[in-house]
């Protein structure tokens, strides 16, 4: 089975019923995406598939159509993604375990809605649980990233067609 992950095409020899999460972690060796609940209740496993934030723990790898983006693919040429940079500037993480999922959810939010309101942030981010309670800094980091993140030209064009 072939998947496009972070721009690379990867061959995976796994059961198509296996959740994408475990295909990423155990087969593709991309362990930044985390296992938290297995039932789409916590968001630790969140990845972006064709622009949509997706719980990889309940998505069968055989059903994946489109490009998968994970935390490992965000930084480009040694430069942090604006959301990662905002997470650093606000010193968001504590234990850090949920943060890959939080960051992917925030990236998907900002790509869709570059100037989210507090209510937009609540809606987009409430699927992501953090037991350390880093929420106030997550909110601050999303707002910071909203001021630094360029609107992707291709996305803009796509949304107008």
């Amino acid at each position, binding site marked *: 089975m072939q998947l496009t992950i972070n721009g690379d095409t990867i061959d995976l020899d*796994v*059961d198509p019923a*296996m*959740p994408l999460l*475990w295909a990423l*972690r*155990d*087969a593709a*060796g*991309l*362990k*930044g*995406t*985390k*296992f*938290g*609940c*297995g*039932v789409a*209740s*916590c968001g*630790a496993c969140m990845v972006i598939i064709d622009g949509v934030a997706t719980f990889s723990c309940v998505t069968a790898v055989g059903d994946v159509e489109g490009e998968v983006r*994970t*935390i*490992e693919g*965000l*930084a480009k040429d040694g430069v*942090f993604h604006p959301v*990662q940079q905002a*997470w*650093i500037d606000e*010193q*968001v*993480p*504590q*234990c*850090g*375990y*949920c*943060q*890959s999922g939080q*960051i992917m959810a925030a990236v998907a939010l900002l790509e869709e809605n570059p100037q989210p309101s507090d209510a937009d*942030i*609540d*809606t987009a*981010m*409430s699927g*992501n*649980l*953090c*037991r*350390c*309670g*880093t*929420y*106030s*800094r*997550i*909110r601050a980091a999303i707002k910071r990233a909203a001021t630094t993140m360029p609107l992707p030209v291709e996305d803009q064009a796509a949304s107008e067609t």
Partner: protein
Amino acid sequence: MGKILRRTFLIGTGLVAGGLAVGYYAASRPWPNPLEADLAPGEETFNPYVKIGADGAITIIAPRAEMGQGVHTTLAALVAEELGVPLSAVAVDQGPTSPAYYNLAVLEQGGPFSELDTSLMAETARKATRAFGPLAGMQITGSSTSVRDAYDKMRQAGAVARTLLFAAAQERLATPASKLQFDGAEIVAPSGRRVGIASIAAEAAALPVPDEIVLKDPADWTLLGKTQQRVDLVDKVTGAAEFGIDVDLPDMLYGTVLMNPKLGGGIETVSTSFAEAVPGVVKIVRLETQLGSGFGVIAENTWAAFQAAEAIEVEWGDAPYPSNTESIMRVFRDTIEGPWKGSAWRDDGDVDFAFGDAPPDSIFEADYEVPFLAHATMEPMNATAQFANGRLTVWAPTQAPTLIQTILADAIGIDSDAVTIHSTYLGGGFRRRAEADFALYAAELAREAGGRPVKVTWTREEDMAHDVYRPAAAGRFRVRMDVNGMPDAVDMRIATPSILKSIGKRIFPSVPIFGPERLLTEGAFDQPYAIPNYRVAGIEINMPIPVGFWRSVGYSYNGFFHECFMDEIAERAGRDPIDLRLQLMADYPLAVAVMEKLRDISNWDRPLRSGKAKGVAFTMSFGSWVGEVVQVAETQDGLVVEKVWAVADVGRALDPGIVRAQIESGIVFGLSAAIGQQITFSGGKVDQQNFYDFDAMRIDRCPKFEIEILENSQALGGVGEIGTPPAAPALANAVRSLTGKRIRSLPLSGEVEFA
């Protein structure tokens, strides 16, 4: 500023001048420097905390579990401050597992005395504990003690390394050490002459330790007292941080466990034929351990292991406790009903006499209750183990590496020298990861894996149903009001199982644990209030459900009991709850300062518009003095927590950013439990399975925070747990004020609806 006399180093008497508690060299004397055993060519080490690479790179060892509390950052800053280098100039490493990294403060914290108690007896007991600490050699992260334990010894370690390096550089550069400075991997003189650290490290390490080491005056600190960039930050925003669940080894197998959910029960009948038929399954292993009975699955990937575990058909043996919550809690309620017994941890005045002649209308009585709770760390329990050539190697997200080393050696039947524990990052701890079960099961499966490593990951359901729970507790609280409307006598009896005995049974089943347990009443007996007749008694309940330390331990339930009851007293007295507390805590200026600051920043005295209300609570815990105000509001969807103000006197905030984050974190943890969490039992099994029925606060319900840190206290306080205890009572008191409902059992959502 402190000086350490030469005899401390040379003779190791443990005597220290200048007010420092324990000389680092003396304290570490029973144990060799573990870094010496594993130096690469050209590497040098000065002590267990500092290593210089062949390229001159400085590595600081931060030997406590990093589980989000920022401990690697602050511990490294202690060394770097005295070494005289910025944090960005050093690498920070967890280091090896070694008794040299014992935690002394954790033993003191567990002692049978109130932190308010500075009596001769309490101080003598603490000194005895200090003497015992190095001998016990326990490397443990817990009880909010990491920084308190490290404060002297790691600053001294940095100072010693600096002194030796500069002494060696002084010779080479013919410049007095006092004029030298670090510049990257070099030491530079004002003349511009420089020498590489690497080229003098060996010479420096061989120098005798000088007569005296002078620690910096805190006024001269450049790192401590200022918010640092956390050393784990970049790893944690790029997915590069290696948690236990991310361990990846050549030729590794994957696994999981299915243990009896009737905790402590055995196995009646089993069929594994369906499980064995799952593609990718290597082996099903029956596990009979001191921590539980069940099955392990070894497979080619985690998903196959999970599917196979689900396919095991088994009839479990019964648990040794009543099968449902109602009958379990009946035991608690009957205990507080029954005749007075237990150990009085505080017994001021004559409580029986005070109540004996009290007019009935001067007495008020209330019963309180809290449920069992799970830790529910974000990273489910897991560990990786390999057993080959008679040696066991374990990679684990653990708060207690030396403890699991001992237990695993015992279980496998090998010497503890043949067990190596590698600690990883922890995806949350809250003390769940001071247990041994996850490591033990991985070790047992490794024995069956033909020398290959096995990474054993629990499902969330397995994790939720096999925790060591925060114990349920029940309390009966009585007050006698005097004619002036002040409390003349309070009588508090708190019934809960012994956490230490439960842990003892799991860890050292052959060693009996006895004596009064402070955890039963901490948070109620040790608070800075003066009431003429004041009794707090703990009654131990025999309830063999595995219980353990949970963020803030006894303070988590006694904080709720004590501070809700304090509000009930204020209500009887017709007094403002902050006023009443201020009057009762007048002997403790630190507490008074906290409450006055809290009243100020929370605008306590300003009336709120209808539909909103505030509640307050104060709990001293882990050496820190903490008050919180919670504001709740009625909305169409239910109650919402809008804002929390917290004031904490932590003595010294070594990294204010981390202290603030920890206090917020502790509050979210406490509010999550208070609003909606409970662990219940049916048919001997835990009912809750996953985050959908044991949820925690999400971003859309998270309040705003305003946190003020005070540094009036002379003692360094803990910060990891202190935000939690006042959160639940402050919220319950706010709910009372808003709705008129006095809710005496948690979670509050049992009686009021939250949005």
